[in-house]
């Protein structure tokens, strides 16, 4: 399937092979605008491995920094073959992801995960930060529940949605944050984790809540250092120096200007009420 999509203001010509993870998620992002980026997933066994020595070898992964592009290959011992190869140019305008058909029923998920990772790289290039969080819109403001997996992001979101009917999910796994005109906005994307929940929306950021399970519901202000640590623990981390530079300004502004709290919460519906009470207090 090939089409052009506008995701968080980024127009991309995207070709994917399997509908399992993209049906119900991606069509709402269809666009007629000219694409700036191109990402294509191919399924084939003939991998064009660079003939030079790899620049980096780490475990089963080889990275080749070539003149016109970077190539990453991953070898899987159980297949006795390369499982995937990714090549991309320096500005991420041309990304090709090649998957080995020997991966069988793992192909749709790997396609979804890898295309997501490279979309986050593009997003960084465009000044957006990808945060591991469940993002909801409530009264036209975005609330982000951020934490490592299994902490209860989606659980808290579900409590909130059950109690407050005018709330909806922007993205249940990796919302994007962008600063525009002195405000931060949260965008949805088709890469929304194991659930299909995402919406093609742009909502002004209210607060990022960094979650931990607690014995009572307690909102705790964060110091600047704690905000930095929480953000770096939960963002999609830039790996290239140029990407770090691009992210630094947005992160600085986010830390200095955006509302962030730690939220120790109980695993029941009272956790949503505490958030609502906090919003009521802040918005008065």
């Amino acid at each position, binding site marked *: 399937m090939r089409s052009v999509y506008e995701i968080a203001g980024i127009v991309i010509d995207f070709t994917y092979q399997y509908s399992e993870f993209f049906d119900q998620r991606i069509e709402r992002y269809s666009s007629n605008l000219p694409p700036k980026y191109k990402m294509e997933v191919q399924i084939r066994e003939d991998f064009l491995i660079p003939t030079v020595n790899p620049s*980096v070898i*780490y475990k089963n*992964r080889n*990275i080749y920094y070539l003149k016109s592009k970077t190539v990453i290959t991953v070898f899987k011992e159980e297949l006795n073959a390369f499982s995937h190869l990714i090549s991309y140019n320096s500005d991420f305008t041309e990304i090709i992801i090649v998957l080995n058909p020997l991966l069988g029923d793992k192909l749709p998920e790997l396609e979804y995960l890898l295309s997501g990772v490279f979309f986050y790289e593009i997003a960084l290039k465009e000044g957006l930060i990808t945060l591991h969080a469940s993002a909801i819109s409530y009264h036209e403001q975005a609330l982000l529940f951020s934490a490592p997996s299994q902490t209860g992001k989606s659980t808290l979101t579900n409590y909130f949605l059950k109690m407050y009917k005018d709330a909806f999910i922007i993205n249940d796994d990796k919302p994007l944050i962008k600063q525009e005109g002195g405000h931060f906005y949260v965008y949805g994307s088709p890469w929304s984790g194991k659930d299909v929940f995402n919406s093609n929306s742009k909502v002004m950021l209210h607060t990022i809540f960094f979650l931990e399970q607690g014995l009572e519901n307690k909102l705790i202000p964060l110091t*600047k*250092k704690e*905000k*930095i*640590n929480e953000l*770096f623990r939960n963002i999609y*981390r*830039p*790996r*290239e*120096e140029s990407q*770090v*530079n691009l992210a*630094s300004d947005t*992160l*600085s502004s986010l*830390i*200095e200007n955006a509302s962030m709290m730690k939220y120790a919460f109980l695993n029941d519906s009272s956790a949503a009420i505490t958030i609502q009470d906090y919003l009521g207090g802040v918005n008065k």
Partner: protein
Amino acid sequence: MKLKPGYIVRSIAGETIVVPTGEEAIRFNGIMTLNKTGKVLFEAL
């Protein structure tokens, strides 16, 4: 004392942060925050 290649220092919200890049970003999934002394040492290496 020698600085390991692949680590860069950046100022984020006024704090001095050391971030791994490239190969090191694959090996080390974290950041380091430096105080004033750490910053001076890092820049001297």
